């Protein structure tokens, strides 16, 4: 896309037939260049966005908890092949039910190149809690402000620039059902991955004692499990006394968790694509 095109109203640009940069690849996941994860509260339209991008028909339903396992699909955008992982919707990454664990483990150990947090424009406050928890784990985050049409209908004006400024990561208004804003979302994701856009996620600072404790603990975790991502987040969980993380550490499973999340290949995704349809 040239610069000139960028100035056109994006809505028309994206719905016109000439919009060909996005190629849906369904579950052909043989080789891909980048992995992105879709996270968000329940019922914010993650699966709808997933379907729009991949051309798959992961069953979407208007009720929370439709996706309890993760589904994977692929698409090509600007000559790069993406694998996209649709995670179960969760309100937080702190508690222990199985669907939340699926989401958390993937963001933590699957090391996606970028995580899109899909938020509901009409209930932004509650949605941002999760976005900020994801931002604690990784800095490659793009916030997609979905359901903009519903917000407009309810007379809500969402200033995504202010949102992006406050969060320290890009915030893109979209309507996943109609495809509005998808192009801008994908080019932003690409720029975050390439480093053209530098993100500075706003993180909870806590007390000086807390910062000191995290700074002491993180290097120890990195030393014990070389190559582990998100040592900072694990340190916080350990300080909090998270039994699951403690257990994984004691049994030496941290490294295994990393490799398991990354191993999941075509077979797995095919199975999920079928299960998700039932």
């Amino acid at each position, binding site marked *: 896309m040239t610069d000139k095109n960028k100035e056109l109203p994006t809505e028309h640009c994206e719905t016109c037939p000439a919009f060909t940069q996005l190629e849906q690849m369904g579950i052909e996941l043989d080789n891909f260049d980048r992995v992105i994860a879709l996270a968000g509260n329940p019922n914010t339209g993650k699966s709808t966005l997933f379907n729009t991008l991949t051309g798959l028909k992961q*069953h979407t339903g208007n009720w929370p908890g439709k996706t309890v396992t993760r589904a994977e699909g692929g698409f090509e955008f600007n000559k790069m092949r993406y694998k996209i992982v649709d995670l179960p919707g969760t309100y937080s990454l702190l508690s222990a039910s199985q669907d939340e664990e699926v989401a958390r483990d993937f963001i933590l150990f699957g090391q996606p190149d970028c995580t899109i947090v899909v938020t509901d424009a009409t209930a932004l406050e509650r949605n941002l*809690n999760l976005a900020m928890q994801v931002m604690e784990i990784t800095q490659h985050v793009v916030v997609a402000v979905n359901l903009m049409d519903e917000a407009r209908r309810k007379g809500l004006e969402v200033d995504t620039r202010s949102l992006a400024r406050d969060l320290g990561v890009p915030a893109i208004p979209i309507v996943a059902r109609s495809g509005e804003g998808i192009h801008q979302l994908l080019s932003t994701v690409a720029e975050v991955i390439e480093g053209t856009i530098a993100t500075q996620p706003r993180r909870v600072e806590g007390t000086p*004692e807390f910062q000191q404790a995290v700074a002491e603990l993180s290097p120890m975790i990195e030393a014990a499990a070389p190559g582990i991502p998100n040592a900072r987040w694990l340190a916080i969980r350990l*300080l909090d006394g998270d039994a699951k993380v403690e257990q994984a550490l004691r049994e030496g499973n941290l490294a295994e968790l990393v490799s398991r999340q990354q191993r999941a290949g075509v077979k797995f995704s095919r199975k999920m694509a079928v299960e998700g349809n039932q």
Partner: protein
Amino acid sequence: MTTPNEILNKAAELRGTLSTGFRDEIVKSLYSESEAITNRAVHAKGEKTYDLDQRIDRIVTSPIFGLPLMLVILAVVIWITVIGANVPSNMLASGLFWIEEQAATLFTNLGAPWWLTGFIWHGVYRGLAWVIAVMLPPMAIFFPLFTFLEDLGYLPRVAFNMDFLFKKAGAHGKQSLTMAMGFGCNAAGIVATRIIDSPRERLIAILTNNFVPCNGRFPTLIMLGTVFVAASFSPVYASIAAAGSVVAVVVLGVFFTLIVSWALSKTVLKGEASAFTLELPPYRSPNFLQILYTSLIDRTFFVLWRAILTAAPAGAIIWIMANINIAGTSIAQHTANFLDPLGFLMGLDGVILLAYLIAIPANEIVVPTMLMVYMGTGMMIELESMEALRTLLVEQNGWTMLTAVNLMLFALLHNPCATAIITIYKETNSRKWATVGALMPLGIGVVVTIATASIARLVGWV
């Protein structure tokens, strides 16, 4: 190299330097920051218009109208299915059986051996034809309607309305959601119980999911309601009676879900119901193309394809059983005779029980299997319409109203299909719970049908 224990000790030591509840403070600041950021970014334009969603919800989830409205909606959906499916079912049946006849004649004329013609056309093909004729039209009407309600956002309201009942039963309120999913497919409902955090409540939800009839069983119920219950009423009320009987079965299923959940939570799975928040999503105008796709491709053809895959071998097995004779009687007849005493006790007969044995892989094929055994063991007749079906069952095989009612009860209360049993095993990782999940509904079904049969006979209805 740092050992895990060193890290854990260090973490414990550092925790001591932090004020207690430091995590609460962090969570609190997370919340207040979210609030501040939202306030800066979101502005309400002009006067806030009245919220239509809330007005609708005040009626849909009201303590007085909520539950009755649910029943009415269910009844209307089933009623539309009943009146809509009748004609296409008959057309499909006559068309498909005409093909069977022509093909069988062709085979005979070409000099094919009788057993080949019989096996392929009167065995395998007839099984398939029945599955398609009986199941396709109701599914093609029921599923789009169901998906419409789902996309609209009605299912969480159902959960909301029923939450207090599950709470009283000592189960998790989210169980009403997984139960609703069970109407689609019990195996899917069992997988969906992952949204329940507490293992105790999750196990209850898994074990009781089978008490609501799934897609595979709805056509059986609708067929029985249409052919038998409706036939005892004047034509004006026939379709209403048919729909009413199916709704009654569904309500009974929910009743058993609650009673068994309650019994489990008072005995082997003791505990209190945990609290949870259920978010009522906004009503969204459904996307009609999406609904057609989901309900026709994902649901209708998925279920139909599974039925076809299992019906073909079942048709073959039945044909073989019906055509291999020992001491002058076919194996099918021997087996049915063996099962007859138990069948009689349950107000059913041996053939029906045999059909349930053969149909363990998929509930969808119970009725076709039963019909094939009846036709294979008795006189061969061509079933051209639903009326002919009634004649076959009532006049030639001695069905009564009790048989139809008890078969509807047994269709609701019996072991889950093989897929659901395997899913229970996978989700619980326990042979014990998979066995309980399989045998408990079956046991209840046997007891209930024996009870109704005994009462009916005692009172002299039959």
